[in-house]
């Protein structure tokens, strides 16, 4: 598997910054789910987003993908402000996400589920025709070993396979930034390795990936950089080993150490 040697600081300075969150806040009623979060994501980089439940990780994804509008702050994409853009427009610009609870279209076949993203995703599809898109969809499905089921309805898939399909659907839109929300939950260790290998291949092609994951060991294997959230704020950022081992992060997961 392609291990992630995090780029040096010098390399990062030269990397193309794709997406920037600038002092993003989101309030749900009286709860401040995200507070002034600032984040940069560069091309061909895997950024791990970690933090305990309720720390604001999925909210941040929703703000980046456009499913939610921030209460304050900006989202920039390739230098352009896109804070008000709806999700389909961001998808066509090159930002896409998977859903924590996989939501494929259950009555469509796997090939149709993926073809939708090929047809409506970022411009530049090999073909705008439905039949050809469904044929190309099989190639995308093959990346995660689902091509044998391409003619079946998504309803027939196990939860683990639905998550793989979810990833294929997102990849089909040809994203430059892929937001992956807890894809490894419920996968066997072998399956998890396969998915991480696939993400590493996408990175090698230049895709930026932001990964929400609770399996920290798996993250260490692929992530170039980690960002830790706690109660809606960034509490640590940097090389994954350093972030995972930092006292603030340990405290956020485990509570304050007993004296």
């Amino acid at each position, binding site marked *: 598997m392609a291990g992630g040697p995090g780029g040096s600081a010098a390399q990062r300075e030269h990397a193309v910054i794709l997406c920037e969150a600038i002092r993003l806040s989101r309030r749900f009623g009286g709860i401040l789910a995200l507070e002034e979060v600032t984040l940069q994501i560069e091309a061909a980089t895997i950024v791990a987003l970690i933090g305990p439940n309720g720390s604001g990780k999925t909210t941040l994804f929703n703000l980046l993908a456009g499913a939610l509008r921030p209460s304050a702050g900006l989202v920039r994409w390739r230098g352009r402000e896109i804070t008000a853009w709806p999700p*389909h427009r961001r998808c066509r610009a090159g930002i896409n996400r998977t859903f924590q609870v996989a*939501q494929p279209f259950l009555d469509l076949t796997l090939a149709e589920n993926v073809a939708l993203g090929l047809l409506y995703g970022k411009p530049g599809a090999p073909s705008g025709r*439905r039949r050809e898109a469904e044929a190309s969809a099989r190639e995308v499905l093959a990346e995660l070993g689902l091509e044998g089921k391409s003619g079946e309805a998504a309803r027939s898939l196990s939860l683990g396979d639905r998550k793989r399909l979810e990833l294929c659907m997102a990849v089909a839109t040809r994203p430059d930034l892929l937001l992956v929300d807890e894809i490894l939950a419920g996968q066997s260790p072998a399956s998890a390795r396969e998915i991480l290998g696939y993400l590493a291949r996408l990175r090698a092609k230049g895709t930026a990936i932001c990964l929400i994951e609770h399996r920290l060991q798996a993250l260490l294997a692929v992530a170039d950089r980690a960002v830790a959230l706690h109660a809606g704020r960034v509490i640590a950022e940097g090389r994954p080993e350093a972030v995972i081992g930092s006292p603030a992060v340990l405290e956020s997961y485990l509570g304050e150490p007993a004296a």
Partner: protein
Amino acid sequence: MPEGGSAAAFPPARAAFRWAGIGGAALALGLPLLPGQQEYLLYLMTMTFLFGLLAESWSLPAQAGLISFGHAAFFGVGAYGSALLSLKLQLSPWIGLPTAALLASAFGLLAAGVAGNLTGPYFSLATLAMAEILRVIALNWTTLTEGAWGLVGVPGLPWSGLGARAADYYAALLMLAAACGASAWIRRAPLGLAIQAIRQGEARAAASGVDARRVKRIALAVSGLFAGGAGALHAHIFHWVDPASAFSLNLSVLPLVMALFGGNGYLLGPAVGALVLYLGNELIFQRLAPGGHLWLYGGAVILVILALPEGILGWLVVRAGLRPRGSTP
């Protein structure tokens, strides 16, 4: 629709459906040319096609989850539009009818703008209200519409070749074929995939790049076009339009019932539903029970919808082995 597999195992069934389609189409095309007095038969078939057209038009936005309770709005806009164009502007019905259908299509865009963000019952109620608002406008704008009196003397379709009944018949058949053709094309196009995706999960469809509002606008505009065409043709067949009939609740409920009865997931399901229900009512129920035929009609609808949730066509297709039970059309 998936091809192969089960279809190869049952070629006779698939061939039977194909021959039924070809035979039906040939019969439909040749019916007015057959010798003998058949005014009544032509009238019945014209009305069947008209309701088939309305049901097919209802079905398209329904595929995207937009369940209209107000299709009478489109029908009425088409009926009043074409009647007014021929009465006030002396336009030929051949120009008035498509113009009125376009007007109803524009009303579909308006409906999508007003109610396109609503889902489920809220969208349905909004469309119900639209039909009712138009009915009240038609009732009260007496300088234009003659109010409850209605517009009378709407000219028929001018076609000297085959006589009025045959002209109505072919116009209805042509529009039904156009609606089915448009539906078939949309189903095979990317748009058809987007429509199905939106019904199953609008947020997920948006994440795949689908602009749901745009897709809904298209679905309602196409639906309005054909429903408006049905209304316009109705006005020219009966030479009269009034608010109570053009915006009748009946016209909103019937396409829904016919589409579900025939099999809403299938291209020809709504048309088959219209055929069976309209002809069944006219030829069987009304003769069995002239005073209470609507009881029979209602009973038949309830029975079929309870026993055959995928409609008549869905039941036939599954029984013929062309598609496994429980899979999607």
